[in-house]
């Protein structure tokens, strides 16, 4: 499989990465090189094989449903580019 220019633009939008028209042909070439490389996986017989979900066989750990952290709003917003009090500021989302 390979991707065309329209697909490159669509992927870029899905990934929320702005891509200029000039970058599309180059990116298309690189993505297609990677897709050509992974193409060899199609020759592997995977019938009846379970997809891996956990590389180390282990039970999912659980914990008590208790609050064990928090009250650190200052820390949470400490590195934000724009804040007001304990809120993150973003451009208007809802009209």
């Amino acid at each position, binding site marked *: *499989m390979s*991707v065309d220019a329209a*697909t*490159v633009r669509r*992927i*870029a*939008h*899905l*990934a*929320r*990465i*702005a*891509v200029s028209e000039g970058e599309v042909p180059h*990116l298309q070439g*690189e*993505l297609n*090189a*990677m*897709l050509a*490389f*992974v*193409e*060899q*996986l*199609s020759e*592997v017989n*995977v019938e009846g*094989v*379970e*997809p*891996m*979900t*956990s*590389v*180390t066989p*282990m039970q*999912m*750990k659980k*914990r008590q449903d208790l609050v064990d952290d928090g009250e*650190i709003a200052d*820390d*949470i*917003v*400490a*590195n*934000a*580019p*724009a804040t007001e009090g304990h809120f*993150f500021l*973003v*451009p*208007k*989302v809802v009209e």
Partner: protein
Amino acid sequence: MTDLTSLTLAEARKGLAAKTFTSLELTDAHLSAIEAARVLNAFVMETPDRARDMARAVDEKIARGDAGPLAGIPLGIKDLFATKGVRTTACSKILGNFVPTYESTVTSQLWRDGAVMLGKLNNDEFAMGSANETSCFGPVGNPWRREGSNTTLVPGGSSGGSASAVAALLCMGATATDTGGSIRQPAAFTATVGIKPTYGRCSRWGIVAFASSLDQAGPIARSVRDAAMLLRSMAGHDPKDTTSVDVPVPDYEAAIGKSVKGMKIGIPKEYRLDGMPAEIEKLWSEGAAWLKAAGAELVEVSLPHTKYALPAYYIVAPAEASSNLARYDGVRYGLREQGKNINELYENTRAEGFGAEVRRRVMIGTYVLSAGYYDAYYLRAQKVRTLIKKDFEDCFAKGIDAILTPATPSAAFGIGEKGGADPVEMYLNDIFTVTVNMAGLPGIAVPSGKDAQGLPLGLQLIGRPFDEETLFSLGEVIEQAAGRFTPARWW
């Protein structure tokens, strides 16, 4: 007094305990070495004041006699580990001047045991790279050069700063991370020892995530014993990482010097690649001969799905990366590029903040997870991953204790020499290491010889899950036979 920077960690520990020198003296010696080696670009942030404060505090503890196992040992920390109050960037513009308000579990355990932080080390952006060329702080120089040449070579990646700093004697050891070979490949390129432990051995909490099912932390060190000492402090169960495994951490150092007599060492025929340089082949046979001379038994084994590990990795790792890196959106931390609306803000921030390699991987990851392609790519890759793991399980079920392979398909290369036209050319560096991440196994790279141009080469040992001890025992046999390698200082 001998130059304090030339000691191994084990030797320094003895000197500190005997009060031959203080941690402050040892730390100062390394801080001076760092200053004199800035041309290598191994450190992206030096923290000399903090280092001296930590050293003074630990000297008091040593005087009182309540020092931890790494008391007074100055280390470098890969910039992927969150360090409280010290800028942590993953060497990406998108994290900007991010200053964590918390400490990664692995580094907190090193400080608990008395280690001293010298600064933060360069790496490939988000650990995506095999040459440390994708860092937003620029490439790292390898202390090794080809005989009679002034060309600066790459130290490998992604833990290139860690490997370069340890090899150049700027720190006594360093933290590193390995997703597809990022500890073992740079270790092999710089004649240092690097171990990626079993998945789940070290907590991932507080380490900038790349591909969560593959990422593991481990040390890069000057000797096998040093690596064992560092891993003991770094490893251990952490409730904050649900994939961290609750099993006791052995005293890895006790495994060093243990007899390897009767151990069965697998030599996988699929690692004998067409067109493999003769000197890599020779190194591999020499390593096998050393283990045999120490009493181990060599067995040819088959890992039939080896060739599919790298392509499967280049689906699984970008897929996980595209998901993990979704958090860098210009809202909660790091860089923000303005936009007319929230979507433009995201898109502009991520276009400006991510470098070319990261953008490429996030996009391929987005594609293989997108509707209509998930089954063909991602699901198939995860099935192939099951088969890769099964290859190893079958091998270990036959009584194999460890597997010996070359660590890399070549020695270090020049900056800008690889991957310019086709990214896959660079990816092939990890062909021998990536299988280990796909199967969650431990792997160690040990310096084993030099190529015709005088550049170091390494061998890799792959172990059973949670059997790092066997790797340390076997690794030390190779180290004893091969000797230690130190680069001639040119910086």
